[in-house]
């Protein structure tokens, strides 16, 4: 647990003053920690909590104060709010049940959050750095007149955050002077939430009924039985070296099957149509940090490395012995991927 340190946030100073004025002088650090109060914004889809919700809660718990979770959508009080209430360490779950928030449209979801943030007097608001969090939270921050901190990978104290910049080529430590800290967190950096055993109470949130200015028309989601790319234990990734979608499917998919891995791709492979956009790993795609990242036909451009270099073990197969990927790979094999990958797949299957 991170105890708040003696930083000079105006609000904290004010609150500490009020606190000291009405209590005995022996105000301990743990008593001050009670002034900190965090709202974790949960993402749900069709009544199911999404992975980004758990990273938001993990980050909120790291701050040390009481944590309230927020969820909104159709029928959430009987579904995702109940799921959230079982998560260990939550004080309560604020739920707003309305079809209007089901698709997480920021035009009405942002005013909804702002109203609940102000009512709850939270000092911290956190969401996962997913498409939902990325689209919603900056709008919320602007309405609250605070400067958001995006894609946080480390929390040093209640006002000090660590985040990668320049495609992960530099690490920024930044201190927020805003009265409310609004931030999104990288999923691979905040994990380990216990999803059973909690008993938070579910309470109704305020609903300002702000109009939706956009209308949800349709969605096309890639259906997959595979583990989710962002949280998979193992990822098999292919790049430009695969040459075509047919070859990508013929070579990469069986290897991923043999390892029970999620499939990823470099931007070059996605741009060439070998793999779906949603599989892109890198600065502008997904960030992954699996136990094993095994890639073939990927040279290792800095934008790609930004998305996978926190993987525990990196293995690379590439025919160019000087490819930059070999500088970060724990194990590299120089060779033709069209021979080596099928051979590897067969040998893994026979083990």
């Amino acid at each position, binding site marked *: 647990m991170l105890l708040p340190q003696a930083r000079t946030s105006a609000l904290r100073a004010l609150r500490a003053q009020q606190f000291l004025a009405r209590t005995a002088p022996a105000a301990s650090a743990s008593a001050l920690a009670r002034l900190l109060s965090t709202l974790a914004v949960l993402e749900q889809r069709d009544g199911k909590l*999404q992975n980004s919700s758990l990273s938001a809660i993990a980050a909120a718990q790291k701050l040390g104060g009481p944590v309230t979770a927020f969820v909104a959508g159709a029928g959430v009080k009987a579904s995702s709010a109940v799921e959230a209430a079982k998560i260990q360490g939550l004080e309560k779950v604020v739920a707003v049940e309305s079809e209007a928030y089901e*698709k997480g449209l*920021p035009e009405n979801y942002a005013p909804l959050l702002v109203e609940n943030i102000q009512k709850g007097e939270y000092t911290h608001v956190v969401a996962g750095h997913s*498409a*939902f969090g*990325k*689209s919603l939270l*900056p*709008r*919320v*921050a*602007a*309405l609250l*007149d605070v*400067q*958001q901190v*995006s894609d946080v990978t480390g929390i040093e104290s209640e006002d000090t955050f660590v*985040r*990668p*910049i*320049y*495609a*992960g*080529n*530099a*690490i*920024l*430590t*930044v201190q*927020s*002077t805003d009265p409310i800290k609004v931030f999104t967190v990288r999923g691979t950096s905040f994990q380990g939430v216990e999803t059973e055993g909690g008993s938070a109470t579910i309470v109704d949130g305020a609903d300002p009924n702000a109009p939706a*200015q*956009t209308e*949800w*028309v*349709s*969605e096309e989601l*890639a259906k997959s039985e595979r583990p989710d790319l962002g949280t998979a234990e193992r990822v098999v990734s292919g790049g430009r070296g695969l040459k075509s979608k047919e070859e990508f499917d013929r070579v990469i998919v069986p290897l991923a099957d043999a390892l029970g891995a999620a499939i990823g791709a470099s*931007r070059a492979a996605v*741009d060439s149509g070998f793999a779906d956009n*949603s599989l892109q790993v890198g600065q*502008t795609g997904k960030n992954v940090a699996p136990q*094993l990242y095994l890639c073939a036909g990927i040279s290792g451009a800095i*934008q790609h490395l930004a998305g996978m*270099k926190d993987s525990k*073990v*990196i*293995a690379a197969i590439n025919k160019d012995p000087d490819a930059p990927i*070999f500088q*970060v*790979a*724990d*194990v*590299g*094999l*120089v*060779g033709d991927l069209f021979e080596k990958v099928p051979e*590897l797949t067969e*040998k*893994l299957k026979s083990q």
Partner: protein
Amino acid sequence: KTGRGLRILVPVKRVIDYAVKPRVNKANTGVETAGVKHSLNPFDELSVEEAIRLRERGAKNQSPIKVENILALSAGGAKCADTLRTAMAMGADRAFHVDVADSPDGGPEPLTIAKMLQGVVKSENINLVLLGKQAIDGDQGQTGQMLAGLLGWPQATQASKVEFKDAEGSVEVTHEVDGGVETLRAKLPLVITTDLRLNEPRYATLPNIMKAKKKPLEKKTLADFGVEDKKRLKTLKVTEPPARQGGGKVEDVDGLIGKLKELGAL
């Protein structure tokens, strides 16, 4: 200024070129920028391109709505003017250079930029703002959403397809979400942020680069839009990420499997 067409604002940022590996400076306050190649943020190239394509589609009656004007804008030091000339060589009609001193911390924060853009939208009667989904230096991905929030306008982030449906400005935007794409319907005025798959930006041709030198480029300041460069976030330090040491190469597939087992990955 008050016709029924699109009056587009395209904010662009000058950043270290995407192919350059940035180096953290000795003082640990930012990255080295002196003598380093800079260029137009790649996502902003996409938004300039999309603005121009909207105009071309309108001119060919492939879109029910015409473009009246495309204003490019950049905030930063003197060299931003080059970035704006590039945008105008691609096809923007005019440009505002908002003069802000260069600093190692990446310039004004997104909230400051969003407030400035809010002022520009009002003074120039803009009805469509096209921004990149993120700048590749700060990687924050906030400005478009903040601007939409401040204006009270709808937003469509990470757009991969933009299609106007009628002359009143009804629009359908397909945008990238986790696991696929989603399509939204909205109406002008609107903020759109661009994603990689939206288009392929054109190169500025030499004749167009020459023509761009004659297009109007106005110098502005943050104060012109009632904004000051106040920092909410204090940079405590900027450091190199922990270096990853390559573990060397193996001879064959058996060697690869052996090493992965040794590392506990299999």
